């Protein structure tokens, strides 16, 4: 076997791992992006994006079924031959690394802009290294526990958003289908990026204890994320006017700014601070998988050395270079594009390939 051993995750952990990876930096900006493309109909694109994501994730699981105890970086060499497969695997690892760095840098710059304006970015990076190391050194099962726990810990943040209720105005959502289907379809392109995270099932699937629930779990995870996206977007839409919303860089945080309690004035600061937990469940899986797959590719069973190395490299990189916000936007953009390939194209190709190969393998074993 592949040394999975005790590193198993339960179905709920699997669901929340995927859900945690999906809900991340996207939610903060999504209402603006949707509004700028599709206007008041933007929220419908989320449902559409959800549909596409579900299809892609089902294809992915269907493909993974053929190799129940191998992750994608081990399957690819088997399918495509040593050289081609390993190259493809390296590309996937690079994608994970890119994802990790994007989320990490984005979170750090978010803290820098909203919470700690005086602190240099690299200090925040160094600060983050400790909890990241704590969580990642334990392997997949600790990651699963982390996502699970954080989900419960951050559950309260969602209903609190409904405190905006008195200021909401449903009229902003109307009219429906203002400009027909075209903009909705266009905007769905940006929503399917927010659903990225399910592609990590390439890696989680082998660790899943009860594989028969993989499909159901995937559906639940995608739907959970969809509900979060949808609620946040509709709340933002009804709070701000269609023009106003495009002015905000982070409309979701604007939503929190409206909320005020007798004992708490700037709720958005508390919200954002706790949102770091949500961001961590997005970034940590990517970073862990980079380390994990690298160690697998290089034939090592222990990922700790690579973990220390990558954390050190990130720190060094952060000290030398602090990305500007426009750089970050570009990074997110590039990451989205590669994510499209990894998350949506590869499952289709893989499913086709395996269907073809599966027949051959069936003949061989039969």
């Amino acid at each position: 076997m592949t040394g999975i051993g005790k590193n198993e995750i339960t179905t709920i952990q699997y669901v929340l791992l995927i859900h945690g990876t999906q809900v991340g930096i996207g939610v903060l900006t999504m209402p603006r992006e949707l509004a700028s493309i599709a206007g008041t109909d933007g929220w419908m694109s989320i449902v559409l994006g959800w549909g596409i994501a579900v299809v892609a994730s089902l294809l992915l699981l269907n493909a993974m079924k053929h190799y129940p105890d191998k992750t994608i970086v081990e399957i690819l060499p088997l399918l495509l031959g040593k050289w081609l497969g390993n190259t493809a695997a390296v590309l996937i690892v690079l994608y994970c690394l890119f994802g990790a760095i994007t989320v990490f840098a984005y979170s750090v710059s978010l803290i820098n802009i909203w919470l700690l304006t005086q602190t240099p970015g690299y200090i925040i990076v160094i600060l983050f290294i400790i909890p990241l190391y704590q969580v990642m050194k334990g392997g997949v099962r600790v990651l699963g526990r982390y996502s699970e726990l954080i989900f419960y810990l951050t559950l309260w943040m969602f209903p609190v958003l409904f405190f905006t209720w008195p200021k909401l105005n449903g009229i902003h959502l109307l009219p429906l289908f203002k400009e027909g289907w075209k903009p909705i379809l266009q905007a769905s392109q940006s929503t399917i990026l927010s659903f990225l995270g399910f592609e990590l099932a390439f890696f989680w699937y082998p660790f899943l204890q009860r594989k028969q629930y993989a499909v159901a779990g995937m559906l639940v995870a995608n739907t959970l994320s969809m509900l979060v996206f949808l609620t946040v977007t509709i709340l933002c839409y009804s709070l701000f006017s269609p023009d106003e919303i495009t002015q905000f860089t982070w409309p979701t945080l604007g939503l929190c700014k409206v909320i005020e309690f007798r004992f708490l004035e700037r709720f958005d600061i508390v919200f954002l601070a706790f949102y770091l937990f949500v961001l961590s469940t997005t970034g940590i899986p990517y970073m862990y998988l980079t380390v994990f797959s690298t160690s697998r590719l290089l034939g090592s069973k222990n990922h700790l050395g690579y973990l220390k190395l990558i954390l050190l490299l990130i720190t060094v990189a952060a000290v030398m270079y602090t990305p500007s916000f426009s750089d970050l936007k570009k990074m997110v953009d590039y990451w989205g594009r590669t994510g499209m390939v990894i998350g949506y194209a590869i499952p289709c190709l893989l499913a086709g390939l395996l269907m073809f190969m599966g027949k051959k393998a069936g003949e061989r074993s039969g």
Partner: protein
Amino acid sequence: MSLKGWLGRKRALAMMGKRTSTRSIQPISEKLQDNIDMVQSTFTLTPDLVIRTFESTFVEGRAALVYLSGLVDKNSINNNLLRPLLNPSEGGSTSILDLLSVGSVSTYVDFPSVEKEILLGSSVLFIEGRREAIVVETHGWPQRAVEDPQLEASLKGSHQGFVETGIQNIALIRRYIPNRELKIKELTLGERGSGKISIMFMQDLVSQDVLRELEGRINMLTVDAILNTGELEELIEDDPFSPFPQFLTTERPDTAASHLLQGRVIVVVDRSPIVLVGPATFASFFQNVDDYSTRWPVATFIRLLRFTAFLVATFLPALYIALVSFNYEVIPLDLILSVGESRERVPFPPILEAMLMELTLEMLREAGVRLPAPIGQTVGIVGGIVIGQAVVQAGVVSNIMVIVVAFTAIASFIIPNYDMASALRLLRFGMMGLAAMFGIVGIIIGLMALIGHLISLESLGVPYGSPFAPARYADWKDFFVRVPLWNMKDRPVSARARQNKRQGDNRLKGDDK
């Protein structure tokens, strides 16, 4: 070299230097005088050694009785050993063993074992012309009576606490579980002060993995002596770098019995009034035996109070620092004004103010613990005056800080387990530092690191974070809430018991009432 590597190396070196006793096994001589000489040369400078030689009509020639006077029960020696030997009844038995009216009698042929037995409190009988020594169990060392437990006082539970004798402690537990499935594995540990370590478990419940793990870890140790349960705990725990205790310690036989029945393993260390319970989980440190004898809504309320206290004790001073010195925009204007008013005369930054008060509190607590009761009270009064009145009037510390400190102190007293409460004391300072440097973000990152640490910890290979991470929903019946007893039909998953069913349906229903 890393810190861990350095500590590991030290341990390895200690193992290498293990004293190997190469003394050849000395047989017991046929001549009585040789044996007595041997004993005397072994136990030099030992005034408490008693060698009583006597002649008995029963044995051919002379005999000698050897024991350490402080460690034996004199009555037993006088009545059960000397009397029958000196005045053998007429027409009695022919074997000397039948003559001794003592429960446990055994014979040894080599000197080292005899020496060990003497040191442990047995009496040894050498007889002229015999190549063996008769070892009679006459233990009777100084003992404390069974008393009310000190650290874990209970309102409705039993008032018997463990004492310093392992056998008695085992008996105290056995009183609760008179069952043949209650098994005990006895190990001897310690090169110089060898003592008995008894691993107790329910044979049909305990997970073999856990048992094997624990036994293996104890067997690996080579130490001079285990003087206290805490030493053993530190040597065998999973992560020695963690502030959190990874074994539950208890001085209550009823708690120990309850854990045994849940399928956990118990380690009784002879000479220590505290036993180890493993595997432990984070949540188990917030449970108390009284929880199960108070009404369940009340018990649930108290549980919730404890978890709240955990949060307060860890984060409140940090939150105060973060809000006052960093993220003051979070608090509404009215509140910040009153806080500012209170801090008006205070010349220090909040972190210094908080450190000052927290350290004073810790000192007061530590001073109160070790001092005899009458002086301890004085410490409390002095501390009360200092914290309550003088510092505020002098303008060294603000009123609100005093409230924060008092609140934190009370919260940390609610945690029922001393080890866990101590861990929180340490965490609090870390959080305060983070809050002073990074405000709310610092606290969140501290919390993140804390969570990351808690969920990756293990106790005997069982996840420490259970039942919240990994979430075991079946165990949530005894986690934040304590559901009615008739509802807890299964044993906790985190105990890894082999038989899951704990009890039948005990609830009266319908016409049964």
